[in-house]
């Protein structure tokens, strides 16, 4: 799924990154627990999370995740945006819950990591 379609489906707002030229989202993983994110072997899923702090982005960097979607109406901090920008990530915000977000993406072909 391309980022512009994801934004349309989830009423998501682009916080940083290049939505038009970003990689296609094939897999997604939802968690508020960064320790779980660090156990993933899969390559570059979309991270859906309600955890909004700088360690969310740092964890994404370590796990080679290039796209982060903050759900439940959570807002990115300036520190998060700066770090995401430094790592060429796309970061988005949606007012939808993690459950609703995951359901919509799954319905439109985005696969789970496991």
């Amino acid at each position, binding site marked *: 799924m391309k980022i512009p379609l994801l934004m349309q489906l989830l009423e998501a707002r682009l916080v940083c990154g290049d939505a038009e030229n970003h990689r296609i989202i094939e897999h997604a993983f939802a968690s508020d627990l960064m320790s779980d994110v*660090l156990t993933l072997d899969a390559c570059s899923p979309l991270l859906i999370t309600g955890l909004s702090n700088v*360690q969310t982005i740092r964890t994404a*960097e370590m796990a080679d995740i290039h796209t982060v979607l903050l759900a439940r109406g959570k807002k990115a901090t300036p520190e998060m945006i700066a770090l995401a920008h430094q790592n060429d990530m796309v970061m988005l915000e949606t007012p939808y819950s993690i459950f609703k977000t995951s359901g919509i993406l799954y319905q439109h072909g985005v696969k789970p990591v496991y």
Partner: protein
Amino acid sequence: MTFTYEIEGGNFSRAGTASSDIKKALKQLDLDYTIIKRVVVSLYEAEVNIVAHARRGTLTADIDPDRIVMVLDDQGPGIPDIDAAMTAGFSTASSRVREMGFGAGMGLPNIKKNADSLNIQSTVGVGTRLEIVVNF
């Protein structure tokens, strides 16, 4: 090539900066993607552990042609029962650490999973030393 960093306990804004630097250095070496990921995930978990539990610590990473040896020494409470700490789900983390998305008792088991060798020495009331080796 040797890298040394000081790590400040409790400072979550800076947690991961050393791991990030080492990741950038490893990417210059044309190593396999999965090796780099194993190194940085284990290093980041260990770095976050110092920030979460200790007063301060030092991280030294020695990169050789065939492996990386990472030593993390901290001044902190130490680990009373290393076997328990290696059990997935065992945690003594504070609520603040949990709010940052960690403290679920998965750090040390995840380091072990990603490392070729993990050695832990700890003295209660003094500190903990981790030696993590990943072969290239």
